[in-house]
């Protein structure tokens, strides 16, 4: 009974906390018109103006010129503009456009990323649902199964699903680490302990009575409904930046007097990018984590070690008693 009360109080507290959230969520204007900073390279103001007329909300303008040449007198002839490219977000999808040299007419449109997470269409959406279902089903397995090994396997399935979800968010390195650490190491640890304990659970779920279960279930359903309603509305602050994130991108690695002097090609979420961040700004936490892991290993061994007087003494008696 007390457990039901605790559960209900926690759930109602969460619901109450969420009740005040929509007011804050409605602050963000969601009328579809985002002001996008135009990053233009090599384009004249005239071309930029033309492109913006032809493609409202275009960004990432780039004008490719034929190579500049220097004549005998040392005068530099910059080539004329050959092609103009621009990206635009239309209905939440990023589309690359190729325009005529004056930027007035669209020649071709390339559906580069068909939606904001960069997945391509329905196949990827189906995969998302499949992996989301796998991870949720695994999580439900953990919470509901009486058999501990089944619970551990559900947890592994859930973690593998989450790894795939990371992959969809372009966090490749994290996905691999997730599989290695969670589905590999932590799973083995849990299975070992389950095998050591080797004891079926007598009472899997707290008895709470029909009314309490129904009330708690309804409260949880309401909470999930509210969460879905609020979170599905979440839009990136700037869909242009978000949509452009996965592409290979030049990242500044050296500055001199607030100007970039060296750029390198990075891909979001790749080992290079993560490593650069981990060993740059994240160096102190990285080193601190190694101390934490060392302490955890020592602590785990110290805690799990059998106590001498309990376990050794009976063994000694037995050997002494043996003929």
């Amino acid at each position, binding site marked *: 009974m007390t457990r039901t009360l605790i559960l209900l109080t926690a759930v109602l507290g969460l619901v109450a906390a969420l009740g005040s959230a929509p007011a804050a969520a409605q602050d963000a204007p969601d009328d579809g018109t985002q002001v996008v900073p135009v990053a233009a390279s090599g384009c004249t103001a005239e071309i930029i103006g033309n492109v913006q007329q032809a493609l409202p909300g275009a960004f990432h303008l780039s004008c490719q010129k034929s190579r500049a040449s220097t004549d005998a007198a040392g005068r530099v002839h910059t080539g004329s503009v050959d092609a103009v490219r621009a990206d635009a977000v239309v209905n939440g999808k990023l589309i690359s456009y190729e325009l005529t040299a004056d930027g007035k007419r669209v020649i071709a449109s390339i559906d580069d990323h068909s939606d*904001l997470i960069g997945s391509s269409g329905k196949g990827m959406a189906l995969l998302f649902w499949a992996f989301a279902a796998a991870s949720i089903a695994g999580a439900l397995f953990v919470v509901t199964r009486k058999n501990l090994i089944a619970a551990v396997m559900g947890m592994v399935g859930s973690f593998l699903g989450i790894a795939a979800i*990371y992959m969809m968010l372009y966090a490749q390195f994290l996905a691999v680490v997730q599989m290695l650490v969670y589905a590999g190491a932590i799973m083995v640890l*849990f299975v070992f302990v389950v095998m050591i*304990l080797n004891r079926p659970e007598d009472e899997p779920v707290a008895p709470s009575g029909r009314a309490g279960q129904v009330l708690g279930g309804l409260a949880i359903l309401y909470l999930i409904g509210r969460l879905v309603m609020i979170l599905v509305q*979440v839009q990136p602050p700037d869909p242009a930046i978000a949509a452009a994130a996965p592409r290979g991108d030049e990242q500044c690695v050296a500055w001199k007097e607030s100007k970039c002097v060296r750029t390198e090609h990075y891909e979001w979420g790749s080992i290079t990018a993560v490593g650069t961040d981990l060993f740059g700004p994240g160096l102190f936490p990285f080193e601190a*984590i190694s101390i934490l892991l060392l302490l*955890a290993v020592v602590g*785990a061994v110290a805690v799990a070690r059998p106590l001498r007087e309990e376990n050794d003494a009976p063994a000694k008696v037995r050997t002494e008693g043996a003929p």
Partner: protein
Amino acid sequence: MTSLVWNIGYGHFLVLAAVLFLIGVAGVLVRRNALIILMSVELMLNAANVTLIAFSRMWGDKAALSAHTFALIVIAVAAAEAAVGLAIVVAVFRGRHNVEVDRLNTLRH
């Protein structure tokens, strides 16, 4: 409604993370086996990681890559927590021959 099914946006990832977190919370609150409670905690940590990565991706900023560092550190802390937690479970089991948190109501055995 169909657009909600076929157009996967950041909200979907956040909802997924929230549901996973809720399942983890329910596991911690409802179950009595210490092992299951530890697993539920791992689930909650994972859900928080998914949220971190989704938001980092959503902001699309280079600096947002720090979320990767953060997530990696969370994974390391989760591993350490699992190791120590399971060691405690084993030690408790050795003393009392059961790991149900409702029965662990005294400090000595």
